[in-house]
């Protein structure tokens, strides 16, 4: 807490497009009072001042090399609350496409088998390195959700991040389902919270917010294949942002079977 009673927050970036930080800046357009509610002590993209004393750390970007780990751990030591900001930090995100050669494995994920993964320093979400208290998902994050999360933290409650499928929001938007428009969509297994913005603008959901915690994978696979998706198509749908999750799930299944 700073002297004026405002909690000190800092923003950090790792491997990312910095679009989530930009979204934070954008959120000021509708919520200039954010600056009155918190004291920002570090935000490299937008300011030169640097404070090392902060309560909440918002971290953007994935961990992509060993040297990132030390920096992450330092942040974790200082911050009481660590929030992963956006898909790269939350899931590994689009960065994890970098290692996407083993399409076979993803295929096996989708088809429920186990797989062998090679071991390498891979792109990883920050939660794979340090404990994360909260996540604000999305590529990029949703402005409104960011502001709501800040308010929740200020109030001392957990930020509300939905754990139900995107279709919930998509229906309320009264979108004609993409599946009936001859496209396919990850909505039924993807975490809602973006107000189904992609289907609303006519594009398939690519699961940038990650999967819900209890997806019906089998039913989803049946739906996708029924709508003409080939194995390659399926693979590509499942890996845009979630390569890391798919791998992890597979590894867990493999270990569980051993």
């Amino acid at each position, binding site marked *: 807490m700073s002297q004026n009673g405002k909690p000190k927050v800092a923003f950090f*970036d*790792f*491997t*990312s*497009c*910095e*679009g*989530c*930080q*930009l*979204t934070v*800046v*954008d959120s*000021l*357009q*509708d919520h*200039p009072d954010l*600056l009155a509610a918190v004291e*920002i002590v570090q*935000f*490299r*993209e*937008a*300011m*030169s*001042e*640097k404070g090392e004393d902060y309560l909440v750390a918002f971290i953007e970007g994935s961990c*992509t*090399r060993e040297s*990132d780990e030390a920096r992450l751990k330092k942040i974790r030591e200082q911050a009481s609350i660590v929030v992963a900001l956006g898909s790269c930090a939350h899931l590994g*995100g*689009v*960065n994890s*496409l*970098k290692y*996407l050669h083993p*399409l076979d494995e993803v295929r096996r994920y989708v088809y429920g088998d186990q797989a062998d993964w090679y071991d390498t320093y891979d792109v990883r979400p920050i939660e794979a390195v340090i404990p994360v208290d909260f996540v604000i998902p999305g*590529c*990029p994050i949703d402005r409104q959700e960011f502001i709501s999360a800040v308010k929740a933290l200020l109030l001392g409650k957990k930020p509300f991040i939905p754990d139900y499928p995107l279709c919930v929001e998509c229906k309320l938007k009264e979108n004609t389902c993409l599946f009936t428009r001859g496209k396919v969509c990850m909505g039924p297994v993807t975490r809602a919270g973006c107000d189904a*913005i*992609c289907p*609303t*603008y*006519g*594009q398939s959901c*690519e699961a940038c917010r990650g999967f819900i915690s209890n997806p019906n994978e089998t039913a989803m696979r049946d739906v996708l294949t029924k709508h003409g998706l080939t194995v*390659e*198509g399926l693979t*590509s749908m499942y890996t*845009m942002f979630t390569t890391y999750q798919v791998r992890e799930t597979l590894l867990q299944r493999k270990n569980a079977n051993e």
Partner: protein
Amino acid sequence: MNKRIDVHHVTRVEGHGNIVVEIEDGRIKECRLDVVETPRFFEAMLRGRPYQEASHITSRICGICATGHATASLRASEKALSVEPSEQTQLLRKLTFHGEILDSHVLHAYMLVAPDFLGVGSVIPLATSHPEVVLRALRMKKLAGDICAVVTGRHTHPIAMCVGGFTHFPKPAELENLHQRLVAARADVDETVALFATLHWPQFERDTEYVSLTKPDEYAFIDGEIITSDGARLPAEAYRQVTNEHLVTHSSAKHTRHLRQSYMVGALARFNNNYPQLHPRAKEAAATLGLKPKVTNPYLNSAAQVVEIVHCVEDAIAIIDRLLERGITSEQPAPVKAIPGEGVGVCEVPRGLLIHHYWIGEDGNMTGADCVIPTNQNLANLEADMLALTPLIAEKPIKTMQLDLEMLVRAYDPCISCSVHVLEVEPK
């Protein structure tokens, strides 16, 4: 005299870069901008993915010029697949592109550059000392973002753009609303020009080669030929003759050079090369700001951005007029006429010339990609400027030197996360 400047992670720029300047016995030993951003292998990531995904993946190269990357990507795919977008598609793309240029320039000019001139470390203290300035910036940024949102769903990582067209169309009422707001924003634009006309730009001149796209009848942002201030003019497809990308040891980003050791892209290059095509009001603004081609002070890149803010607002108004006049139809994307194929898409994103070069296989999957990013093209020139500037300021206190150098780096508006795309994948 010994001096060492080491700015570890220049702030208020996009991405991570360090300034290292070392002066030993009055001799410049080191003078460089290290790009320490993690390589992101975007070109490798594209390989094997369906071409429809390419623009979604490449927009994630950079949150600030996401629309620019998406547009260049779509143009590359369209060229590769002989897709001819409709007039409506072209107008909508230009409109959202203006939104992004405005957003980026306002962000850069007001939030990243202005604090240096007003003697503060960021925009946050400005909120108390110059609230009207900050509110104006936020207002203009919001309008810019809303232009993108109306056309493509959102600015960062646009949604509704696809190969051949759009998957969602703005309603006339939404466009009318934007039109009104743009007209009303002229007041803010005038204030902006007035504000930047009062700034004391550092005096530093160094002529270089200025490279940009050009089109005969409009100030080129999407498509066009590549033109340079040294007189070269060539089709986009021949971009490699200009860019000559090469790796340097201290940077995870590639550098480029053309006729000289280095060249400059961005608002200043566009201004120098395409001044005649600027909107008359933008030319007036240039006069107010004291700009006349050819401008060779790199610090004035920020002033050229202000000129472009004027141009984009005016051109956006004209585009909306045109769209409303012809009506918006929910048309299907233009069809793919040939597959496989190879294509080059070029745009002038906020920071300069952006090139996406794609190879698409028979199955519709990407077999190769090459992206040339404006910041990479600028890095060599920026270092050349640093090298030329350092002796001129070597007598100043180290803090001032450091600030001058940082301001120079910021003037280029470098987008370092864009610049690191080391791995190139050519079709086998």
